[in-house]
């Protein structure tokens, strides 16, 4: 029976390899994944939390959505700039639900995020609603969840932790197969050792929540690489679309032309589309000479797929309008799948329950590792290789 034994041993060594991958990817990422779960929980309900603190203008302002119409954009921009003398406009963003219009200003066209001010305006009445309250609890939580206050390196680091999570999930599924060969799906053995009880919970919850964890893990990872993806679009396709401006000096803010003219040119090129935001010249989302007007897709599934129209900021004439590259589109599609904010309250509750289940999988995983005994690994691998048994002590 030598060949058979050889085959068995080979299989055992393969299992050992996957076991080590599962153990180490999990050990490296667990602390950060727990942080992401704990900070992610309140973020799921940020709309509801904002509404409680009266910060949800979207739900309270009556009138035509700012993306569809209202007072002239030039007038709204002036109202915003009057509140921030000496500053220049960086972004203008529209709402699909209410007349809320936001304008972001900063000391210079290329101002970094922490020097920007977000202003709320009502496009139906022309009224300024003041600056967005910053530095609140939810901002803190979001920042921790996105980059741990470390900027781009922090984001990329968490992206790598997301990759570890996905590898841990895949290796966990590989180990699930031999382990479960003698057990029925859903087996939870509670009258054995604490280890068996935790192991069964770890395996069952892990396999049940697998789809959600894979999707949220993978989309979180893609989101972590958002900034480099925007940079590569700006340096690649955007530069190509606006090649004939390459040698010109950046347009100074006092020479910016009418936003309403620019919007009319853009909408003539992309009829029936709803604008999401405008990137002003000199920022990360435009060139030195253009208003980059980003339009949403016209169907729910493509709502997050943005198509930019580049309009000469001085003349208001269209330069080019082109869908973004596939990678950037994947990024945009992946956002709702990470946030879980697209299916009403029941979907948010699913997100919260799945997050709690993920915390439990992580926690039982830590306990299984902490409470290991000497020579545990060989025993564990034997157990996985032979299949856990319903009728024998583990």
């Amino acid at each position, binding site marked *: 029976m030598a060949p058979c034994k050889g085959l068995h041993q080979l299989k055992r060594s393969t299992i050992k390899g996957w076991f080590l991958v599962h153990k180490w990817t999990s050990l490296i990422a667990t602390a950060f994944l727990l942080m992401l779960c704990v900070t992610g929980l309140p973020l799921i309900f940020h709309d509801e939390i904002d509404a409680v603190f009266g910060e949800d203008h979207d739900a309270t302002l009556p009138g035509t959505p700012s993306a569809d119409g209202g007072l002239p954009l030039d007038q709204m921009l002036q109202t915003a700039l009057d509140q921030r003398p000496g500053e220049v406009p960086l972004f203008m963003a529209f709402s699909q639900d209410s007349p809320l219009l936001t304008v972001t200003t900063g000391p210079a066209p290329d101002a970094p995020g922490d020097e920007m001010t977000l202003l709320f305006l009502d496009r139906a009445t022309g009224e300024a609603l003041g600056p967005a309250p910053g530095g609140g609890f939810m901002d803190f939580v979001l920042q921790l969840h996105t980059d741990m206050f470390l900027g781009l390196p922090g984001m990329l680091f968490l992206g790598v932790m997301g990759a570890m999570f996905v590898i841990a999930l895949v290796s966990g599924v590989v180990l699930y197969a031999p382990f479960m060969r*003698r057990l029925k799906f859903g087996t939870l053995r509670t*009258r054995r050792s604490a280890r068996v009880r935790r192991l069964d919970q770890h395996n069952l919850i892990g396999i049940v929540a697998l789809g959600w964890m894979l999707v949220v893990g993978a989309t979180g990872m893609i989101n972590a690489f958002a900034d480099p993806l925007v940079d590569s679009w700006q340096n690649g396709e955007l530069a190509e679309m606006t090649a004939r401006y390459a040698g010109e000096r950046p347009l100074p803010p006092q020479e910016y032309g009418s936003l309403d003219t620019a919007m009319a040119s853009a909408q003539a090129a992309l009829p029936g589309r709803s604008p999401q935001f405008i990137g002003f010249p000199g920022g990360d989302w435009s060139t030195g000479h253009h208003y980059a007007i980003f339009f949403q897709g016209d169907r729910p599934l493509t709502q997050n797929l943005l198509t930019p129209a580049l309009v000469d900021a001085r003349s208001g004439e269209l330069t080019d309008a082109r869908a973004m590259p596939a990678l950037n589109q994947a990024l945009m599609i992946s956002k709702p799948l990470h946030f879980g904010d697209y299916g009403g309250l029941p*979907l948010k509750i699913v997100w919260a329950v799945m997050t709690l289940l993920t915390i439990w999988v992580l926690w039982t995983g830590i306990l299984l590792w902490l409470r290991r005994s000497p020579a545990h690994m060989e025993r564990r691998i034997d157990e996985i290789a032979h299949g856990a048994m319903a009728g024998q002590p583990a």
Partner: protein
Amino acid sequence: MKPFAPHRRRRRASLATVFAVPIFLLVATIAGLVIGLNGDGLPDFLAWALLALPLLALANAWARRS
């Protein structure tokens, strides 16, 4: 007469058997997540129903724990 312990061991199930329920739940979850993206109303209801399946499977296993 009761059989010996080795005979009480469950037979090794095939990979297809081991993964039958997990793959069903994986497909239901991903379908639910994607269908929900397609708008409000019916797509949302479908998404909720499909995403409830893994949670129901877990609740069922918990109720039958030994």
